């Protein structure tokens, strides 16, 4: 196969991939675009979520068998309270455990008293706008402990989806340059569009602090 045929095959596959990867990701792109706008526009009244939150406090009997380590104690409490999600802010003593469990649109703050054998669960539930906002940021990252990985399987799956969408968008950007380069003589303003975009982006990422 000669060089020209190879290039032709590459540009053809690149174009097809650009189309189909874009179509595959379209709902993810819309979700992250729209939720990004919601995060940047707290003043949008129709998307108010905090004032519309629902709060509920429940008290449940919990029994913690003796001899369990901290992790097993937490697992036991979660299973007895029948909740699942990303566990955060764990504070544990020999007599009690305090922690939060969250998934997009829902946060439970839990206090378990081992001596009294009760688990107090304070739940916060958000409406659809709150759920959309939290989906945008739900990656299980711990600012104080960046080495700690997400502890809920679905957080990991969602974070993987975020990574995949990001990589997909990077591919769409690169493939668009290749597609344009092939037809650059007919679309010579493309130079200006691309350079203008790069100069502006570089200004914010590199030049502002120099």
């Amino acid at each position, binding site marked *: 196969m000669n060089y020209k045929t190879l290039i032709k095959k590459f540009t053809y596959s690149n174009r*097809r991939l650009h*189309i*189909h*990867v*874009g*179509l*595959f*990701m379209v*709902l*993810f*792109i*819309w*979700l992250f*675009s729209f939720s*990004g*706008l919601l*995060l*940047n526009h*707290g*003043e949008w009244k129709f998307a108010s979520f905090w004032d519309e939150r629902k709060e509920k406090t429940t008290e449940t009997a919990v029994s913690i068998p003796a001899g369990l380590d901290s992790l097993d104690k937490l697992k036991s409490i979660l299973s007895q309270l029948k909740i699942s999600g990303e566990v955060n802010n764990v504070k544990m003593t020999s007599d009690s455990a305090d922690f939060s469990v969250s*998934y*997009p*649109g*829902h946060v439970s703050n839990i206090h378990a008293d081992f001596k009294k054998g009760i688990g107090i669960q304070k739940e916060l539930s958000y409406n659809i706008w709150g759920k959309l*906002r939290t989906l945008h940021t*739900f*990656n299980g*990252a711990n600012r104080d402990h*960046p*080495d700690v990985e997400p502890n809920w399987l*679905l957080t990991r*799956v*969602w*974070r993987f989806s*975020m990574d995949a*969408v*990001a*990589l997909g*968008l*990077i591919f769409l*950007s690169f493939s*668009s340059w290749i*597609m*344009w380069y092939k037809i650059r003589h007919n*679309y010579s*303003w*493309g130079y200006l*569009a*691309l350079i*203008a*975009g*790069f100069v*502006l*982006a*570089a200004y*914010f*990422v*590199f030049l*502002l*602090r120099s």
Partner: protein
Amino acid sequence: MKKYYPPIRTLHLYIGLFVSPFVLIFSISVLVLNHTDFVNSINPVKHLPVVKTRLDKIPYDSTDLQTAKGIIQKLGIKGEIDFISQNDDHISFPVTLPGIRTKIEVDKHTNDVLITREEEGALRATNYLHKMPGPHNTKLRGNAAFMKNWRVLADMVVYLLLFLSASGIFLWYFLKAERKLGWLAIVFGATIFTGLLLFILG
């Protein structure tokens, strides 16, 4: 509808080229945000030497923000004031430019100033830009000129991205050769998207 194909194709191409560097900023920052530990290991934050200085007087103004702005103006520091903490003895606040974070602490009694700076680098700069202006401290946000511009640009990028995805669907629809596979890609993507949301949101 077909008569719109050529102008929409041209717009899709030019807008896509212009927006692509910003899409890279947002995409790279997602990877940075999701893998902070890895980024810290390959590109640690550099702590610059602490600077101690003294102001002749604190330029108290009508609001905390104006006072903080007056202080950074006197110190010759530029950036977005993220938030302000104040008590009877101190006023302190971080000032950020993408990639460099400065913390300023002023002793109200002596006018002594402690300036600590961290050079975070280009990767964390994308991270900062991605999160800005964001939902927090909305009354303060946009106190630096670059943040006002970035706010407009960030919105514009999102609207243009929405246009690109909609126009992409329009352009694909007229490509008969790609229609079947395109439908498959849409249905496959929608199934995964819906399935994920159903699982996560319960």
